[in-house]
């Protein structure tokens, strides 16, 4: 069972923007909000050269990595063709205007990935 942890409110994330969720000793998780107020969570690390996706331009359900402009799908963390590669997606839900991430995933998922 998921152990949902409250992170922030939806309005704490800029529309078409992101916030970084810091993790002790591990790469941060980026939470994104698109124009339809859908919220997504990905490891804050581009599969290409490790760029911080939270700093990219958000459009539709994608984010453009700030380093080399790879387009990464917010739902699955995967690069759009012809680029190839995926970053780790995190479970995420919105309930009553609050954004939740899975505490277990935050603790254990992609913790071995070296910081960029």
């Amino acid at each position, binding site marked *: 069972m998921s152990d949902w942890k409250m992170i922030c409110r939806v309005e*704490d994330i*800029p529309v078409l*923007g992101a*916030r970084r*969720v810091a993790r002790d000793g591990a790469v941060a998780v980026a939470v994104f909000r*698109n*124009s339809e107020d859908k919220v997504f969570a990905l490891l804050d690390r581009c599969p290409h050269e490790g760029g911080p996706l939270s700093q990219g331009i958000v459009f539709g359900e994608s984010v453009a990595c700030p380093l080399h402009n790879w387009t990464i799908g917010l739902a699955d963390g995967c690069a759009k063709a012809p680029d190839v590669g995926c970053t780790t997606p995190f479970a995420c839900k919105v309930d009553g205007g609050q954004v939740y991430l899975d505490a277990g995933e935050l603790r254990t998922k992609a913790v071995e990935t070296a910081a960029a």
Partner: protein
Amino acid sequence: MKRDLPVQKQKLVVVGNGMAGIRAVEELLKIAPELYDITVFGAEPHPNYNRILLSPVLAGEQTIDEIILNPLSWYAEHGITLHTGKKVARVDRIKRVVTAEDGTEAAYDRLLLATGSNPFILPVPGKELSGVITYRDIADTEAMIDAAKSYKNAVVIGGGLLGLEAANGLRLRGMDVTVVHIMPWLMERQLDDTAGQLLQRSLEARGIRFEIGANTEALIPDKNGRVMCVKFKDGREIPADLVVMAAGIRPNTTLAESMGLHCNRGIVVSDTLQTTTDPRIYAVGECAAHRGIAYGLVAPLFEQGKVCATHLAEFGIGRYSGSTTSTKLKVTGIDLFSAGQFMGGDGFEQIVLNDPFGGVYKKLVIKDDKLVGACLYGDTVDGSWYFKLMREGRKIADIRDKLMFGESNIGDTGHEGNTRAAAMADSDEVCGCNGVNKGAICKAIKDKGLFTLDEVRKHTKASASCGSCTGLVEQLLMFTAGGDYSKPPTKKAMCGCTDASHADVRQAIRDEHLLTIDGVYKRMGWRTPNGCASCRPAINYYLLSSWPKEAEDDPQSRYINERSHANIQKDGTYSVIPRMWGGMTSADELRRIANAVDKFNIPAVKVTGGQRLDLLGVKKEDLPAVWKDIGMPSGHAYAKALRTVKTCVGSEWCRFGTQDSTKMGQDLERALWRMYAPHKVKLAVSGCPRNCAESGIKDVGVIGVDSGWELYVAGNGGIKTEVAQFFVKVKTPEDVLEYSGAFLQLYREEGWYLERTVHYVSRVGLDHVKKKILDDATNRKALWDKLQFSLDGEPDPWFEFERAKVDLRQFEAVSS
């Protein structure tokens, strides 16, 4: 995109399994993958292959497998019913049923004809003999390869593109080859006589013989009924065990005519590629006649396919308005390019460079101050540039003196000065920005079936950054894919979200007083809900520059550097460059900087090329505190904006100085800072012609002379070292401000987003800029006033967060 799909899919039948028809299908699948059940009929037993590459196959440089574009699995993947080896015999337009020669039937709602062309067979006695073939498909190519194994003498009839490629291939396979050409020189439709003769000489050096002007009367058989020799009208005979008819092609309209479709040197189609007789039926490729022209090159066919697909997809937006085409010969080691009205003659001006010993010939044809034709032999690296000038119809008076020497004659960097891709080794680097070598590009072109420059950029990143290697990549495309790299002559869409160009968008913003990005998207029918990382920053800039004080900045539509007001580095940290007016600083400033470096553990400090200090490796969360501690204005080193005004010490200190360049530079910088622009803007002011501030390679370069100031514009020290052009000489510092400011305001209003001044000026011409600023004092003052109005009261984003709309939440992480 929401769309109510019909319960039962419509049926699309494609007659012709070649490059044009399948490209149209590919384009259709991209935009409406679920709309049709698709059936394809092909007369040949193969899946779609790259017909242009038959010549390299004949020459033994590639194999059949390598030129397949869509393997059988591709058809299966997309649920396409493929009938290979089935020639369509008739189409019943009333019942809407296609029937092949073997009786296979398929019903259609829409029909796409892509039947290509047939070789023209010379109507001479003996044309049906064994050993007489045409050059059109894989079967012909294989027949030639077989013939070369057991026969000696080949005659190719026709000295055009196809005939010469056939001749070259047969020669490489060991045959004695003679090319018979009735016209006075080779490739007369693409080359003038001088270039045609140069070509003939270099092919003769490869052992190919020529019968120029010879008129074929008959093909004579041996006793077994195989061709034995070719007889000319003058009575001479030359031996021939193999005769290749390559005297041109004719659109294949047999089926269309039997269906009662209007044909006139091709199946007549409208701008939407629909046949004029039956709007359910489309035709693309070599079989189609659009505005009287049947195109035989790949770029127009692909463009037609794209337009046709938008109609099949029921978007109804595309229009095909014809193409300007160019030609290159695919004989390895021979560089040849022609386009437009290359013959010149009465009423045309010509610039010619002729070096018969060096094997280089270039002719440029000019009419009404525009380049209208080019014929290049031996050195074709600038072909694409000339072609671009022709399509854009740009006036050339201001570049006429260097036109002949091409775009790449000065200062290109990043590929060791190479200009001939063919001569490069596979391991040689083509794209110095992204580290892509020749081998990798050629491999991607082959493996992925790439045809256009944009596709190569997407897949390999070559030429995708600075673009200085574009000419080389185009050459590689040409001889690897045989692709005609040329982009269609129509205006270029801003990005994949729209068909509108930068000019269209800006015009609409101005004419209709649009103030928001959403407003632009709605008004111009954007295909995406909130654009993409290319168009949104551009539109944000156009709004702000068109309607200062009215349009509101949208930080989420800015690249991260302009959102965080610092430069992101490869490890995700940032760099901070405070402004030092005219490169001057003080002990107090330096002390504050040093203290901040210590306090925030900033790992590196570097002196920049723009006479300031760069603090590298600052953590994002520290940025606001670093700015505060340093207490100096933002240097905007991260922005598409005024960067620096570089100065020399000038008359204040220098024994040669004639003007106070430092003061002038500081005044300029104070007047122009916080100025956003289409791209970064760098200025310099030197106090004398020794030019120690390097004014000659700046967007605006000022040089003090005894009697005043010289202004130079549109220089660039980057990717393409471009020397600034002399603009005007003025008397006073006030003049310097007004003229520089007016130039930059014009650039802000007319430059496309991400276009540097050098590219802007080369697009519109320096004469245009002079007319607007030098010849029209009222306009100059108006421009300068507008710029000052735009900049008045602009906030410093390092201190006035709210007014500069800096979202401070970005500097704090949320805790988990």
